[in-house]
């Protein structure tokens, strides 16, 4: 195993940052700094060329957070000028605080003593591998895909590797972490007559180069599936029994309830969930969680971007809504313990209450039993996108594949794409069967609305429910 090393840069900057924090602690009621130093690379094989470059997630910088008389302000920057750093930061923070004199007063931000570090490990370091070897493997997967059917007009494969390093300092806290995540995709486009369809396989995890071992293996199945999709029909709009695959289940959990229990939405009155705390919102067989602790996937870490240690939150227990997930500000406002869900897209973005790893627990059914229980319905596979509606509990999931089920069997008929919608409590209450399987997926990213992207994972088992399809 290869242990991710700490950031030399952050360790080198730490004494100056600590000195600045100590100096500024005399001026402000609260002061902290988050430093980031994350690097990574993208590799892609396409029909006409190979592409590679630094990842868009690369960042190195600092954000100082100050509180004075209840008002909270931040200044983000990425240069370390010579001289007194505390004076540079003060000159930036003071005008913001002065201009925000009429802003909301938060309770005092906590600063309990903590000193911890975590350095994740992977099997094979992608940053010591030769880039051309990574590209060759991706090309091999792509070529195999293109060669498997004359109807496949495009194929591409790409991989991304990131090493994340962060340092959090406040008068009483010193936290450090470094870990790696990886993701890969194989994508194909098929064409038959006027019909054009696309399909993919994704791979992700707190992994290194070993992730690519999974890529080539997935090609035959993907090729067969895409060719099947070329015969897809439009979905006949209506309400159906459905089985969601683990990826779709995870996105349902993420979009339906995950966003709806981000407690900054509670504070703004943007969520319906507070009215339902302690009340049934789902079938009694549903257990739902979120946490950077508890499972190891793309949403895992030791501490969040506000210096709070990771936890694991039980959101739904036996169908009852139990708890939300919080950033520091909303936790203080609501008087609940921070859950370690304050996350930023990067050092130069604001922290919000965000998900980490969100999932539904496995149940006791088998996939075969679930299939057999449906007279006419659809197996929903391949997430395309999802969107939350925490205030009004609407749900939208767009999946790329609906497989028809009749008399307990897959008929081979495919609908694509399929827009799945419904009222969240109706969809969750209609869950009657949950399989024993469990899979997490962390490819892609999660936005707050249409921005502020962070790495998360979601997943769970196969779930049988009822939804409106179109």
């Amino acid at each position, binding site marked *: 195993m290869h242990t991710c090393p700490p950031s030399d*840069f952050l360790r080198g900057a730490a004494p100056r940052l600590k000195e600045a924090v100590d100096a500024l602690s005399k001026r402000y009621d609260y002061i902290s700094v988050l430093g980031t130093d994350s*690097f990574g690379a993208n590799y892609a094989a*396409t*029909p*006409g060329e*190979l*592409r*590679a*470059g*630094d990842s868009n997630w690369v960042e*190195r*910088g600092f954000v100082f957070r100050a509180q004075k008389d209840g008002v909270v*302000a*931040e*200044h*983000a*920057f*990425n*240069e370390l000028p010579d001289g007194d750093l505390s004076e540079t930061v003060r000159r*930036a923070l003071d*005008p*913001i*605080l002065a*201009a*925000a004199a*009429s*802003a*909301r007063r938060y309770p005092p931000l906590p600063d309990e003593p903590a000193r911890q570090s975590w350095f994740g490990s992977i099997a094979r370091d992608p940053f010591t591998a*030769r*880039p*051309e070897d990574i*590209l060759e493997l991706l090309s091999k997967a792509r070529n195999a895909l293109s060669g498997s059917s004359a109807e496949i*007009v*495009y194929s591409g494969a790409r991989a991304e590797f990131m090493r994340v390093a962060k340092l959090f300092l406040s008068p009483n806290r010193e936290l450090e972490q470094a870990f790696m995540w990886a993701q890969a995709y194989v994508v194909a*486009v098929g064409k038959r007559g006027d019909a*054009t*369809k*696309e399909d993919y396989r994704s791979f992700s995890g707190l992994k290194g180069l070993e992730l690519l071992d999974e890529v080539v293996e997935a090609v035959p199945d993907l090729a067969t599936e895409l060719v099947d999709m070329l015969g897809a029909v*439009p979905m006949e*709009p209506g309400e159906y029994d459905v089985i969601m695959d683990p990826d779709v289940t995870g996105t349902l959990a993420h979009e339906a309830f995950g966003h709806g229990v981000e407690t900054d939405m509670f*504070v703004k*009155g*943007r969520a*319906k969930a507070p009215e339902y705390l302690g009340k049934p919102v789902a079938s009694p067989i549903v257990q739902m969680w979120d946490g950077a602790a508890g499972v190891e996937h793309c949403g895992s870490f030791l501490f969040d971007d506000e210096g709070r240690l990771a936890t694991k939150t039980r959101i739904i227990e036996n169908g009852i809504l139990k708890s939300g997930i919080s950033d520091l500000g909303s936790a203080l406002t609501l008087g609940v313990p921070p859950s370690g869900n304050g996350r930023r897209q990067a050092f*130069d973005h*604001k922290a919000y209450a965000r998900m980490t790893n969100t999932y539904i627990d496995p149940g006791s059914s088998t996939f075969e039993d679930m299939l057999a229980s449906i007279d006419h319905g659809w197996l929903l596979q391949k997430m395309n996108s999802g*969107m939350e*509606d925490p*205030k*009004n509990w*609407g749900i*939208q999931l*767009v999946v790329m594949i609906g497989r028809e089920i009749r008399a307990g069997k897959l008929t081979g008929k495919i609908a*694509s794409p399929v*827009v799945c*919608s419904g009222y969240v409590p109706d969809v969750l209450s209609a869950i009657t069967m949950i399989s024993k399987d469990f899979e997490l997926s962390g490819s892609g990213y999660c936005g707050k*609305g*249409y921005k502020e992207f962070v790495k998360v994972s979601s997943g769970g088992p196969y779930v049988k429910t009822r939804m*409106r399809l*179109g």
Partner: protein
Amino acid sequence: MLNVIQAALRADKRIHDWRLTETRKRGVEWYFSGSVLDTARSVDTLSYSIAVYVDAGEGDARTRGAFSVSVHPTATHAELKAAIDRAVTAAAGMRNPWYPIPEPSGAPVHAQVASGFSGMPLESSMEGLRSALYGASTVDGASINSLELFLASHDVRIVNSRGLDVQKRSYRGFTEFIVNASAPGKDEIELYGDLEFSEPDDKRLRAAMIDKLTQAKDRLVAIPTPACDGLPVLFKGPLAADIYEYWFMATQAQFAYDKTAPFKLGDLVGTDGGRGDAIRLKAVPVVAGSPRSTPFDPEGTALGTVPCITDGRLEHLVGPLKYTHYLGLPATGDHPVFELDAGRDSLERLASEPHVEAAAFSDFFVDPTTGDFGGELRLGYRVEGGKRVPISGGSITGSMADNRGEIRLSKELDTFPGCRAPVACLIPKARIASVG
């Protein structure tokens, strides 16, 4: 730092070409809950991006590899050297068909994208923007729940190994807002709105807010989407712009080179005289009010106007120099925005026939390859017999391919972040999933 990086690149004999981009961003951010400022932030960052190009072989067999790395302003000389080494090693491992990088077009370009924000402290401009947005903060029971406001200046300089040296200052404003509507006996509802802007255009900001507040008020009284079989769908505002992006994507050289574009040069994208309006789309460098406007592309290529789709036919592609070169097409640069010509009929006329008007989706998508579009309807209107009834729920799905040559565009134009284009389009064939 720029000079240090340039010197390192020039001194490295393994590199055949290079490009260096320096970006200074200064921004102010205000976050409101209701009308109360919740948090204020400032951002001051400097970033460098290096692209190195390494060639192999000669003549027709010549190949080129490229790799882009980020260099932070805090990088040491050793880190800079390591970054360049990493980029050179990776680029040398790629053997793509050779392509050029942009040559200087003459004297160095120092451009300022025209903006009313220039010469004003960002903080002062923010207060004006806040006033404009909150000036229309209530409409009959609808109000602003929360609002985020961003304004930043971007100073960008691009230099390359061929002597190109261009720079510009531009401004990007963005606001995201959530509006609520409530009434006794009804659950409060919300809608999402956002706007990108490059000008302190109070009128435009206020109009966007009033539109969204009005939509929220309508969503409050919306009925579940009824059966609407066979009705065409009218897409307005930003949703119409999402539809137009499908055609703009079809003009992208990279898309064509990857063989994922839905059309080839010479194909009929729309109609050349049928029921739908003729599509006439020009790639342009500037749309007034759009923060995406730029005099040159990310490689430094100066941008002009390119008539990509004329009378419904795809005639020219645009994109980074690499892809136009690969396709043997004239160099155009990578355009950020486009103009789409007006249609024949007024919006009033388009809306005079029975239809469903789509106003807000959970997340509307238009797939640029398959042409599939759709989303869950958060607010729409069923318009028939002189009545315009708000509807909500269910979904609308369809295919651009099924509607080729039949889409009608409004005569009225509007400005969107990515284009200047008809304010609405009418799509005749779509599937509308009702509620219940």
